[in-house]
């Protein structure tokens, strides 16, 4: 069953095969959860949205059309759920690090570079991602975390391919500047 494609698993689940869904779930759960945790900084809210996204997948199993990759469809549902969540609640960009420290970027008092200097590399990268404008962060996460291609990102976000490319360019530039030793990054070599 693990060799089956996402389409086949979804079709089998639509016919009542719960094991097919379990395989599909384990295949995509890490990327989806990581995407949501980067988009919704409240862990409890991220769990709720995560469960809501899978519930929508379950309810819509018979309406699924394999005209696009399953991951594209899945993350489109996730993106809409994030938008609904942000509409209903005040968006507060708070990053809780592994050490319990938090970086509050809502006030804008801390620049990505200043935050990165105080944290280790991972926390700095997380902080840099969190400080990105929403559209750039979304495009970056859809590529880096969800693993979607440029056309799939354009399909999920409803933007043009060149627009997505431009957002990614700006996001990478900001992230490279936020890394601990940006001048030592040998991009392209």
């Amino acid at each position: 069953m693990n060799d089956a494609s996402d389409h086949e698993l979804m079709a089998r689940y639509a016919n009542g095969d719960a094991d097919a869904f379990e395989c599909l779930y384990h295949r995509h759960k890490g990327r989806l959860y990581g995407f949501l945790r980067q988009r919704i900084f409240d862990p409890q809210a991220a769990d709720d949205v995560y469960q809501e996204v899978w519930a929508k997948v379950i309810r819509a199993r018979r309406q699924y059309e394999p005209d696009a990759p399953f991951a594209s469809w899945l993350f489109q549902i996730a993106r809409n759920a994030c938008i609904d969540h942000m509409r209903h609640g005040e968006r507060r960009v708070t990053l809780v690090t592994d050490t319990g420290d938090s970086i509050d970027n809502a006030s804008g008092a801390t620049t990505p570079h200043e935050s990165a200097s105080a944290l280790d590399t991972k926390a700095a990268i997380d902080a840099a991602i969190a400080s990105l404008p929403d559209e750039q962060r979304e495009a970056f996460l859809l590529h880096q975390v969800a693993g979607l291609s440029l056309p799939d990102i354009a399909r999920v976000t409803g933007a043009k391919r060149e627009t997505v490319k431009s957002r990614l360019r700006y996001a990478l530039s900001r992230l490279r500047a936020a890394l601990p030793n940006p001048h030592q990054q040998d991009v392209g070599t």
Partner: protein
Amino acid sequence: MSDLSDRELQMFLDNRGDLAEQLSANLSDAPQPSAALDRAILADARAEADRPARPRWWLPASVAATVVLAVGISHQVQRAGTSAVQSVAETDIVPDTTRLETAAPNTVSTVTSDRAAPPAPPVPRPSMADIPKIEVDTERRPERALGAKNEVQALARQVTEERERIAPSLPKLQAPETPPQEDSQSMETITVTGSRLAEHNTGLVFYDENTAADSARVPVEPVPGLASSMFPKASEPPFPDTESALTRIRFLIAQGRDEDARTLLRELFAHDGDLELPEDFPLSLSDLETAEAPEREPGTP
């Protein structure tokens, strides 16, 4: 912040280069959902999988059934409203059979008391037997009101045809040599009966007896021996013989119309010189003589 070149961007999109590796390494150990969350989602998925699926035709069939029901109910409501209106209309328009029978001649008899007019032959009034009897089924159901309407219209046309058929005989009743009477006081006109077909604003036809007086009036030559007062008013009963005439005189006296009573009694004596009045009759021959005597003016011989 230095700008990213197209080459660097393309390398990142291909997951090549130090930047891509550094970002991937830090994002690869992303948090995973809890086991409880996994169990809840998988249990939900299994519960949904065990639920019997509705057939594909279920949604179109339900929509079609809803549309059919909505159309049927609206049609019924519309029909009910129309039937109520037609029921009321039918109550208003269906004519009474007896009214049709009496009103069908549509004649207005005018009796002139012009003494100078020459006697005319008896007036051949159209008998009721000549008028086709029209029967209307008033027990029809309200939903048949539309048919009743058509039937009433057909009956109205039939009555109109009868009127037209009778009409040529009516002008013969009027003496062609008689010039128009300038003095209206010399003629006494009594409307006996009449009817006119009027069209209701709803397009339905009904009989309006109140407008009968507006219909064309046909003057009738006076019948010898009959005075105008012999004809009863609309609210007074007719009398064909002497006994009835006496009864009518009593009726006029009771109403305080003594002069009319005396006139009628005088005409009755003129018609039947051997008439003997009952003892309890309120008028006598002496009353007539007293009334006929002109009053003297004071001072005249």
